[in-house]
């Protein structure tokens, strides 16, 4: 297993691999559109 390095250089190098996700860029939703937005974002998984 490769160890994550804590050196600033290695840290900044690792940062390029971006192990995090950026916010989803979806248009503003009104409350009546929330269920649809939930589905778009895979938030509800009904029927599991």
């Amino acid at each position, binding site marked *: *297993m*490769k*160890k*994550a390095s*804590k050196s*600033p250089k290695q*840290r*900044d190098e*690792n*940062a390029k691999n971006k*192990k*995090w*996700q*950026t*916010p*989803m860029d*979806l248009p503003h939703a009104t*409350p009546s559109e*929330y269920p649809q*937005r*939930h589905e*778009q*974002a*895979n*938030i*509800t*998984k*009904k*029927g*599991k």
Partner: protein
Amino acid sequence: MKALCWHGKNDVRIDTVEDPIIESPTDAIIRVTTTCICGSDLHLLDGFMPTMKAGDILGHECMGVVEEVGSSVTRLKKGDRVVVPFTIACGECYFCNRGLTSCCDRSNPNAEKAAKAMGHSPSGLYGYSHMLGGFSGGQAEYARVINADFNAFRVPDEMSDEQAVFLTDILPTGYMAAENAQIEPGDTVAVWGCGPVGQFAIQSAWMLGAGRVIAIDNVPERLNLAATFGRAETINFDEIHKGDDGSNVHEVLQEMTSGRGPDRCIDAVGTEAAPHGSVDAVIDNLKVITKLGTDRAHALRSAIYSCRKAGTVSVPGVYAGLIDKMPMGAFVNKGLTMKSGQTHVHRYVPLLMEKIQIGEIDPTFIITHRAPLADAPDLYKTFRDKEDGCVKVVLNP
């Protein structure tokens, strides 16, 4: 009436119980129109909170219509729609006079028991153990509101139940968590836990001036909720741990912040952190299972460890008892500040009600499940097991 009652670990049922009555001239009775299952109710389901008794009515997030008022109630009348803060307060003691209503000195009749466990007693709470008053909760058709003039807030006609009901707990709790984090303009705020309180802490962090919000969880749909409605960057710690480079949440947070760490860290997880993924989490789990420990505190340790020097750790997550392996060396030597507490709901209701009215926040985005009260026992388990994309359950008795 029908009510959701606790009968032991993993055992909640709908029972037929006596209707509540006016027990004091300051009481009111409400017909519950909307009530919710809170993440902290799951600590009761899972048997983490002591001093529960079989038959206790659960629920501390409820609103309804006033049916009856005691002879001393002057500010409410039959027919008023009200939300009821989960913390019960007298409105007159040393702490209430300072707006610290969750520290009310006079609302817990079992204060002595609580003081033995905690040094002093917090306020009484609805539906949350006998140590905190033994008050019946609001997952029921009717509920008794204690000291109703102070502990019920009228809801404007144009505000729906679903917009208003979260004022009882989780919206003020998320807001107070962000306020306790002492956010300064442009700060990076990291939030552990993307349940309902975490989601509202994320929203509140933006309202209080955050420049960047990072959400940490392992439930993809909750992270998606944080990424869509909360505009947060997200870290799935299961995905991180699966990697072959030995990385962890701390490493990723440092990568995201050029090694400085998040300025403000919020632990919206509390006592039941995921029991896997790191050595301390596994040890916590073993200790809790064998009753050698009371809390799984990995998220709190992680927040302290990752927070930038001279930063703030805010803890809205509920803890039950004693925690070991606390990184006090890191806490002291990095000069951190920690703030916590049950929410002073009364202080925040007017402010947040206004924010809902002007559209600054619409709390209904977190609702994933709506159901009648009869479905509550099953939905406790759905919510606890994070099945079916469940983030927030709203019940209509």
